[in-house]
């Protein structure tokens, strides 16, 4: 760089900028624009690998702020000299990329984002600001420091000490810091590809870091291998390369980017043979080509960090580039990075990737219910005490008019909370859900709506409202010989309200019968045979599935009993079971040779009423699909003498 071109900014002695920006070596007495640009590059390099942990507010991150001096320097040089220091052969692919994006967007293409212009232009500014080999090597080193920290945080998140910022549903990989697993994986690989170049410069004396450099350069691959070792082994299928590269319009952008990478690598290869060559040209060329090849396989979103790495390496290949850095990075640069890291880890602000509240609201607006449930299910595995996640699962089921599942999730949401990420749903959210549930329930036929709304009311602590609604379901009439106790217990279980059983026992048996019958479309009342043991009547059998669990309950005057069957959905595949194993649901009563009464539920359960009632489960269960539906099916057996309306 010629001395004539270097602009000098004089600052007063008391300036805080001056105090914080003076380096240890080559400390300039005046703060030059090149020094500012170098600090911008250092801050950018230090902050980008930490991704979400460096978010200031909204979409603004610390590395965006670090770009400001680079942009300012470039604009100032452009105004003074009418040209940029970025080599023409490297900036035209960046500008062409930006122009292509504008053309595609104006042409109505939805698959390309306006945001892609940002990394293309950023590359031009970074290439303008870095024409010093020392600055380039230091910036790569700082990125490695932050990359190693990001990987160590990812290891912590893998073992559950820290909640991840991103995860992959298919492979189960998690990372703490990046916004995408693919992007984080690619960034780690890119940094490791630069390791040999940095090591070569260090051994040749071109780059003189502190004694911690060897540790950092060793820690990066070790942490990456440890993260891989602790992560679940993803199948090849989930890592198959995307095919978007060869589709219009991505193919044009990819071709220009590939040419840019090839041109950059060729500069290093050719510069390696000149008298003014640095020592790391060869390894930098390998790193650039390696990054391009890895990007072809992984197809990550072109984030700022890897673009910075590529653009910086261009500065190393400048013919007039000097080896001594214009300024060495100050330790003060660590302060804002560390502060933001701690703040973002400790506090979840709006826009944080862990803020699933905003994510859920967006998904509900976009009607991505299945995806929302998948993401919330993952959050529940890491934060089982977060009842707000259950609340949004309930909202997703309710939006799909699946009232039993919505009620079950809402009951979990109203249960005891031990929040790790977000507090439990507040009264406003509960009221909104209940209003939506009431409307959805009212819109359904009476036999189909079940007890979902009443279950939700009781879960929210509004028992009186629920009881008044239940009383409207049937007429109070007396059935002689019908005991209310078993019916009250069954209703208490159905509603998830054992504390209301004593209230139901004071109700008329006819009303309880009507409520139980109206609780599900498959519910029914049957007359017992004349020879059925009268001491067991009325007998209520109830079976309900929730996830991979089957609950069977039996209530009779002789007592209540039941059991729970855990189904192994991993082992039993849901295909074709219905056709192989026939009808499901409660069958009719039948008598065996020993005179015992049997009633079976699908292929899985048999109720036996002999001297005492018993429930049996089959040892091998065909599949969770053996359940007729994810709700409850109730059969009430009453004495033959009781007259009821079928």
């Amino acid at each position, binding site marked *: 760089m010629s001395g004539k071109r270097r602009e000098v900014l004089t600052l007063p002695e008391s300036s805080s900028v001056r105090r914080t920006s003076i380096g240890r070596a080559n400390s300039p007495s005046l703060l030059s624009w090149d020094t500012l640009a170098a600090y911008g590059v250092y801050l950018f390099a230090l902050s980008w690998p930490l991704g979400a942990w460096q978010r200031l507010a909204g979409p603004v991150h610390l590395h965006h702020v670090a770009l400001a001096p680079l942009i300012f320097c470039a604009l100032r040089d452009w105004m003074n000299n009418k040209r940029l220091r970025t080599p023409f052969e490297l900036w035209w692919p960046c500008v062409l990329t930006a122009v292509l994006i504008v053309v595609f967007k104006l042409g109505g293409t939805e698959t390309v984002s306006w945001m892609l212009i940002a990394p293309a232009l950023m590359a031009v500014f970074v290439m303008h600001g870095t024409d010093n080999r020392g600055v380039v090597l230091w910036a790569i080193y700082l990125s490695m420091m932050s990359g190693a920290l990001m990987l160590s945080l990812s290891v912590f998140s893998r073992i559950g000490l820290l909640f991840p910022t991103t995860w992959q549903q298919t492979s189960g990989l998690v990372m703490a810091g990046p916004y995408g697993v693919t992007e984080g994986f690619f960034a780690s690989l890119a940094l490791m590809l630069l390791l040999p170049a940095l090591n070569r410069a260090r051994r040749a004396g071109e780059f003189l870091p502190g004694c911690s450099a060897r540790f950092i350069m060793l820690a990066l691959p070790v942490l990456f291998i440890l993260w891989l070792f602790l992560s679940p082994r993803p199948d090849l299928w989930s890592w198959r390369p995307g095919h978007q590269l060869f589709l219009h319009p991505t193919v044009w952008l990819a071709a220009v980017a590939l040419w840019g990478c090839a041109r950059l690598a060729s500069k290093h290869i050719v510069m390696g043979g000149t008298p003014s060559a640095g020592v790391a*040209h060869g390894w930098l060329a390998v790193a650039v080509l390696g990054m391009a090849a890895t990007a072809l396989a992984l197809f990550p979103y072109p984030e700022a960090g890897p673009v910075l790495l590529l653009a910086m390496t261009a500065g190393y290949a400048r013919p007039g580039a000097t080896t001594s850095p214009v300024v060495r990075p100050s330790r003060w640069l660590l302060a804002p990075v560390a502060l933001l890291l701690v703040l973002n880890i400790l506090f979840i602000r709006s826009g944080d990737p862990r803020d699933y509240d905003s994510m859920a609201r967006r998904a509900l607006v976009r009607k991505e219910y299945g995806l929302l449930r998948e993401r919330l299910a993952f959050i529940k595995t890491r934060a089982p005490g977060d009842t707000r996640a259950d609340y949004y699962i309930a909202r997703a089921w309710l939006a799909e008019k699946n009232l039993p599942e919505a009620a079950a999730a809402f009951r979990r949401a109203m249960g005891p909370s031990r929040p790790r990420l977000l507090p439990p749903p507040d009264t406003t959210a509960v009221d909104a859900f209940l209003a939506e549930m009431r409307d959805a329930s009212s819109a359904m036929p009476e036999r189909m709506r079940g007890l979902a709304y009443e279950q939700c009311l009781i879960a929210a602590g509004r028992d009186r409202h629920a009881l008044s609604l239940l009383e409207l379901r049937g007429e109070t009439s007396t059935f002689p010989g019908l005991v209310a106790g078993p019916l009250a217990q069954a209703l208490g279980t159905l509603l998830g309200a054992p504390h209301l059983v004593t209230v139901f026992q004071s109700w008329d048996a006819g009303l309880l019968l009507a409520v139980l019958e109206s609780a599900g479309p498959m519910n029914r009342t049957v007359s017992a045979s004349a020879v059925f043991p009268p001491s067991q009547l009325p007998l209520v059998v109830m079976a309900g599935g929730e996830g991979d669990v089957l609950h069977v309950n039996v209530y009779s005057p002789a007592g209540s009993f039941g059991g729970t069957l855990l189904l192994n959905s991993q082992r039993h595949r849901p295909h074709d079971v219905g056709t192989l194993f026939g009808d499901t649901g409660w069958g009719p009563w039948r008598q065996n040779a020993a005179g015992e009464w049997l009633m079976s539920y699908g292929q899985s359960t048999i109720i036996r009423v002999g001297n005492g009632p018993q429930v049996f489960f089959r040892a091998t269960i065909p599949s969770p699909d053996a359940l007729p539906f994810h709700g409850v099916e109730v059969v009430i057996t009453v004495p033959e003498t009781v007259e009821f309306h079928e």
Partner: protein
Amino acid sequence: MFPASSRHHSESLSNPLYRMRRERHVALILFNVLLLLAACIQLFSLALSHPLASHGDDPASAVYLEWEE
């Protein structure tokens, strides 16, 4: 890693125009290599996407395995 073949060659590279031509020449070769690599990766992806390569997820074979048990 990529040493100059001779002193004359090194001195020629000091000439900006010669260096620029050489860079373009090398870049063209590298660009074609990268394109070839992209094609190979896409072929690999296509092979993975083929039903025969993913028989573990095929419902028919899953039922067959269930019967074997």
